[in-house]
């Protein structure tokens, strides 16, 4: 998992398979970066994600909560259609931006 910070915008590049097994490690790393940089915008980039189940939704919800507590907005980008369908089931589209 790579991250890039520029102009108070933190981009987290997710890759591979996101399930309950892999989500734990991603969560720890993403959270420590969010806390370290206190960005104004958090971008979760799913372009290189090859599989995602509802653990991916939990991952987004958790990061959105942490980020919004610090007044940071959350953006999700690079989603494949089926992954978007899963994320939409949670109603998250009302809280975060899809790009």
């Amino acid at each position, binding site marked *: 998992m790579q991250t890039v910070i520029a102009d108070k915008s933190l981009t987290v590049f997710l890759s591979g*398979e996101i*399930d*309950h*097994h892999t*989500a734990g490690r991603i*969560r720890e790393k993403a959270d420590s970066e969010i806390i370290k940089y206190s960005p104004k915008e958090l971008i979760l980039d799913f372009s290189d994600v090859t*599989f*995602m*189940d*509802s*653990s991916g*939704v*939990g*991952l987004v*919800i*958790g990061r959105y*909560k942490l980020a919004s507590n610090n007044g940071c907005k959350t953006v999700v980008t690079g989603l494949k259609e*089926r992954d978007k*369908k*899963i994320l939409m*089931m*949670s*109603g998250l589209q009302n809280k975060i931006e899809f790009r």
Partner: protein
Amino acid sequence: MKKPINDFKMNVLSKSVNEGFLRAVTSAFCSLADPTLEEISDIKTAVSEAVTNAIVHGYKEKQGRIYIDAALYPDNIIKIKIRDKGCGIEDVQKAMEPLFTTAGDDRSGLGFSVMESFTDKLSVRSAPNKGTVVTLTKKISGKCE
């Protein structure tokens, strides 16, 4: 129901690393029915949800075994049973409500909704302290020999 053309049964420890393993095994079995990529992804997603539920909710901190039993029937119908001998579900109807979860902040409560949405039929049988059986049924559009 007619007799299956092909089937497999196996069981694994309820370790989270086996979520990916069971997705891979099930999709390899289903690929014998010549499914589309979309159908394979649907099955992988639904299996992943059921196996995760067994690990996170069925066995919680304990370790047990997850039993998977998949069969391919004439007319290209795939039936996958995922069973655990964990704590079971008190109220199956409540557990199946979208966004309902007992597992805290980072679980979305969408497991059963995703299983329903990516299969043709979902059935859940559960008894407290005995375990849970989730049955996923899906028709594959491809042609099977």
